[in-house]
């Protein structure tokens, strides 16, 4: 199978799994993924690891489980967990046969990239992204950082700015490193204000309540 065919198959699988589990973009969150893991019989183990490891999938002994780096913020954690779902759906046989070895990242490159494709499509389907970009009037090569913020808020998907930039670059709206120096979270706060949960009075109240 060619690489592009493999990736297309992953997109199709993502669409089918969304359908099977009744997933819609704006209702997708960590709780939904935890429920899905439970249905699939996969244990989740939050683990303290270095920033280099996001998640690990193991399934020997017919006992699938995923290590999740406990320091990951919400969106990257969700992405990593969906990434590992692809391994659960597609790569168990390879793992059981010992054809994949831990840490051999280069040798697993295709499998890993396919998992990224699966996760991206599962969390925020390309077509939904294109529809949203069109509704906001985004034009290829003319996207501003403020429009990226607008797009993130409008799309309703649980994604990070990094994810969104990759998507925009993939569809040719921006160059891959065009906004490398933009601090999107800061920009969003400048436009829309600091979210309530990050305001000092809210933090103080939370501390008081323990």
């Amino acid at each position: 199978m060619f690489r592009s065919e493999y990736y297309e198959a992953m997109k199709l699988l993502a669409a089918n799994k969304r359908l099977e589990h009744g997933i819609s973009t704006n209702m997708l969150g960590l709780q939904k993924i935890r429920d899905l893991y439970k249905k699939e019989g996969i244990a989740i183990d939050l683990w303290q690891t270095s920033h280099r490891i996001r998640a690990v999938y193991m399934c020997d002994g017919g006992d699938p489980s995923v290590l999740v780096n406990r320091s990951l913020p919400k969106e990257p954690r969700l992405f990593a967990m969906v990434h590992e779902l692809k391994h659960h759906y597609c790569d168990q046989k390879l793992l059981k046969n010992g054809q994949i070895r831990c840490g051999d990242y280069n040798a697993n490159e295709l499998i890993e990239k396919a998992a990224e494709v699966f996760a991206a499509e599962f969390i925020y389907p390309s077509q939904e992204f294109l529809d949203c970009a069109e509704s906001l009037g985004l034009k290829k090569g003319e996207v501003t950082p403020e429009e990226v913020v607008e797009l993130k808020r409008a799309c309703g998907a649980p994604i990070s700015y990094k994810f969104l930039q990759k998507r925009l670059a993939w569809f040719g709206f921006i160059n891959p490193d065009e906004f490398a120096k933009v601090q999107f979270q800061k920009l969003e706060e400048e436009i829309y204000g600091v979210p309530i949960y990050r305001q000092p009075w809210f933090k103080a109240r939370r501390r008081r309540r323990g």
Partner: protein
Amino acid sequence: MTDIYKRIGQKIRELRTGYKGRGISQDRLAEEMQTTANTISRWETATYKPSVTDLERLARFFGVSITVFFPQGEPTPRINALLSATGDLDEDDLDEVTRYAQFRRARAELKKGKRKG
């Protein structure tokens, strides 16, 4: 109480009394584990069953592998895992993945032990 927990209890006691050549009191270990001396004592006598997470924390504290609490003593098999990583992993990262593989095996052993008990 099943044999597996008796063995675990004995091992905890052995590690505690041999800690750094001088041993460590149940009170001190309890502090490190953020639990009570009573719990440590009951783990050692197999009155209470430590969870796999408790064993992992104990193993980290004593600087041993979680597998020491279990009888099989086989070398850790080659680890087959798929990782979502930001790039190449260093020795410490691979050690951590090994630790996780051992944690999984310990959990499976405890499950087996519970079924037998």
